[in-house]
């Protein structure tokens, strides 16, 4: 069964450092997403990406965040200068069409900023 894969599963970084979270979406999917879940809180939308550009982004997705599809398979989330409050589980997802179709989620990357 096709799946979304994320690496690494756990990343520890020092405050102020840059991190890149990586995702390989399902190969024939066209829409890609990043969500985050702070411990004990709800899953929050960060950004959606289609046709090599951002479709929509939330207030959380400020100038410290960026996304990229550097090749035909990877989809990355970069946090330029991490803050303590960026500590969360980050989920990548993909859909074949828009978000009203089934979204497939990766298992997440737990980011810990120290």
């Amino acid at each position, binding site marked *: 069964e096709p799946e*979304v894969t994320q690496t690494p599963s756990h990343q520890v970084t020092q405050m102020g450092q840059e991190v890149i979270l990586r995702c390989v979406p399902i190969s024939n999917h066209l829409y890609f997403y990043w969500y985050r879940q702070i411990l004990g809180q709800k*899953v*929050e*939308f960060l950004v959606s990406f289609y046709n090599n550009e951002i479709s*929509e982004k939330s207030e959380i997705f400020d100038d410290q965040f960026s996304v990229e599809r550097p090749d035909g398979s990877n989809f990355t989330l970069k946090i330029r200068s991490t803050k303590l409050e960026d500590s969360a589980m980050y*989920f990548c997802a993909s859909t074949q069409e828009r*978000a*009203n179709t089934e979204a497939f*989620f990766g298992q997440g990357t737990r980011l810990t900023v120290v």
Partner: protein
Amino acid sequence: AQSVTQPDIHITVSEGASLELRCNYSYGATPYLFWYVQSPGQGLQLLLKYFSGDTLVQGIKGFEAEFKRSQSSFNLRKPSVHWSDAAEYFCAVVLYSSASKIIFGSGTRLSIRP
């Protein structure tokens, strides 16, 4: 305010008992409706979805949900729970006006009593 509400933070039921998890939404138009499950250490998996038509929808793992327009609700049910159903359950919506992101409720944690 526009929202997805899951009023129960934590529910414990006995194995073999029936289950109902509540979800209410508050949007001008009926959105696309979903239930996702998150097992410990796992990503999110779609249980079922409602777009239109029959208001009782069947999903995977023996779950079903009923859409009630008059109550703005989309409650998840299972007639007989299994220990493996212990997980976090998220109600979610996608708006017609912006079908590029999923909006999640705060989740209900389900524990199973042996």
